């Protein structure tokens, strides 16, 4: 079932109405769990995939229970590493082809939403260890992981926020104003996906068909359409999807985190990631960047700045690799890592050069802001060339354009 379809609208309406017909918390919890399984059924292609999914949910909950009971610290790194290893194998990261025998790949295994489930598990495990997690039963954990409104592509909701909804399961009928706002959000999302994303996708596919030698003006205009249409497609498609799921969850009384805040007016790469796929950025900031920077800066305090730049690079490179199993995603992440690291170094140098008042003037200048937004937008568009298609094809296109230009 496509997210942007009449079937999806009917599904959301049926779930919302039925959910509110149930009089109590327990019945609503069961209904939500059953709905999640029903949503999963057409998305899981075969018994092997079901087995992997059950193993992943059961295994990660087992690690959680074990670490809660035994409070033995090595369980945390062991649990995280084991789950990441399972993730890398199930997702078939391309480098594994060189390391593992081909017989391993005989069965097609697809676990929908695995990337999101991995991050949710790590967050729950770490927060539980540090005494920050709300009570977590098998049923609440499974529903949190498989909730139909966040399963496919986030946003990455934190467990404690989900738990508030899980505890309340507000038995009152839905508020009219909030219900209308939620439907407005769902329909807006569908228009973004069905109309704007489709138009941008059409332009992108048409432009990408032919980069053979041709008059330079034609080639450049074709490349410009190719370069700018994909970021538009991605934004309308992903933010439209997010609108649909935030609206759907809202109909049940569940508040999901926002994922987008006008990303293409960001003034630098760092700002871009604070506006694009925000729930992912904040997860990476909290559980990768902050945790590793804190540990490193405590050990090597005189190298704090360099460590900071390095870890910014690594965090965004990791974000790239998380998006997909092929080399082009690693290149995409590395480009953003370099951009954000360089941006932090530039900001530090400016602070030193201009002083407090100079920096304030610099940040308030409209001209500087315009130039910065334009540069960042083009940087992001360029990086997305590596996101949209395989590495070879992107290099081919860049080579075709470059060789005619120079």
């Amino acid at each position, binding site marked *: 079932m496509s997210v942007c379809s009449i079937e999806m609208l009917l599904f959301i309406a049926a779930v919302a109405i039925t959910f509110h017909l149930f009089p109590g918390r327990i019945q609503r919890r069961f209904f939500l769990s059953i709905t999640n399984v029903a949503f999963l059924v057409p998305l899981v292609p075969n018994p092997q995939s079901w087995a992997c999914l059950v193993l992943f949910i059961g295994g990660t909950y087992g690690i959680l229970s074990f670490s809660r009971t035994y409070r033995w610290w090595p369980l945390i790194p062991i649990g995280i590493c084991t789950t990441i290893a399972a993730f890398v194998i199930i997702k078939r990261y391309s480098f594994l082809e060189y390391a593992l025998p081909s017989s391993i790949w005989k069965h097609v295994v697809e676990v929908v939403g695995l990337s999101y489930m991995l991050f949710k598990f790590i967050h729950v495990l770490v*927060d539980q260890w540090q005494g920050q997690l709300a009570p977590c039963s098998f049923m609440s954990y499974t529903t949190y992981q498989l909730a139909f409104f966040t399963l496919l592509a986030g946003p990455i909701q934190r467990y404690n926020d989900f738990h508030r909804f899980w505890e309340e399961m507000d038995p009152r009928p839905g508020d009219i104003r909030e219900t209308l706002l939620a439907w407005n959000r769902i329909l807006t999302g569908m228009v973004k996906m069905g109309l704007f994303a489709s138009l941008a996708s059409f332009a992108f596919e048409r432009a990408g068909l032919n980069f053979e030698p041709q008059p330079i003006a034609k080639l450049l205009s074709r490349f410009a359409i190719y370069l700018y249409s994909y970021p538009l497609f991605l934004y309308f498609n992903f933010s439209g999807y997010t609108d649909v799921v935030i609206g759907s969850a809202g109909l049940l009384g569940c508040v999901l985190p926002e994922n987008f805040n006008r990303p293409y007016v960001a003034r630098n790469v760092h700002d871009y990631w604070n506006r694009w796929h925000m729930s992912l950025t904040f997860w990476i900031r909290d559980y990768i960047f902050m945790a590793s920077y804190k540990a490193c800066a405590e050990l090597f305090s005189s190298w*704090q700045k360099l460590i900071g730049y390095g870890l910014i690079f690594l965090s965004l490179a990791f974000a790239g690799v998380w998006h997909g199993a092929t080399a082009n995603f690693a290149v995409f992440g590395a480009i953003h890592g370099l951009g954000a690291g360089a941006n932090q170094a530039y*900001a530090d140098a400016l602070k030193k050069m201009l002083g407090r008042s100079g920096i304030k003037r610099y940040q308030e200048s409209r001209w500087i802001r315009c130039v910065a937004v334009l540069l960042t937008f083009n940087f992001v568009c360029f990086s997305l060339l590596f996101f949209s298609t395989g590495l070879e094809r992107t290099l081919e296109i860049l080579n075709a354009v470059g060789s005619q230009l120079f």
Partner: protein
Amino acid sequence: MLNVRDRLQDIFRTVFVDPKLVLNDKMTAEDVDGWDSLAHINLIIAVERGLGIKFATAEISRTKEPGRNIGDFLQIVENKLR
């Protein structure tokens, strides 16, 4: 002996290299020059060292979330010191 607020203010002045910085409860990260993600972790490390407390991963970002202010930060620190 300095109270928690004064000790926290000293730490803020050192981390943000601003000897004139005066903390008040309504201040947010926006009001302090240079309070970005990196500076925030440096601040957390300095507070942990200076006051002998530990922040959990989820608490680190929570102390700088939009809507949070110095009053909330102080509250978290005081709760940890109890």
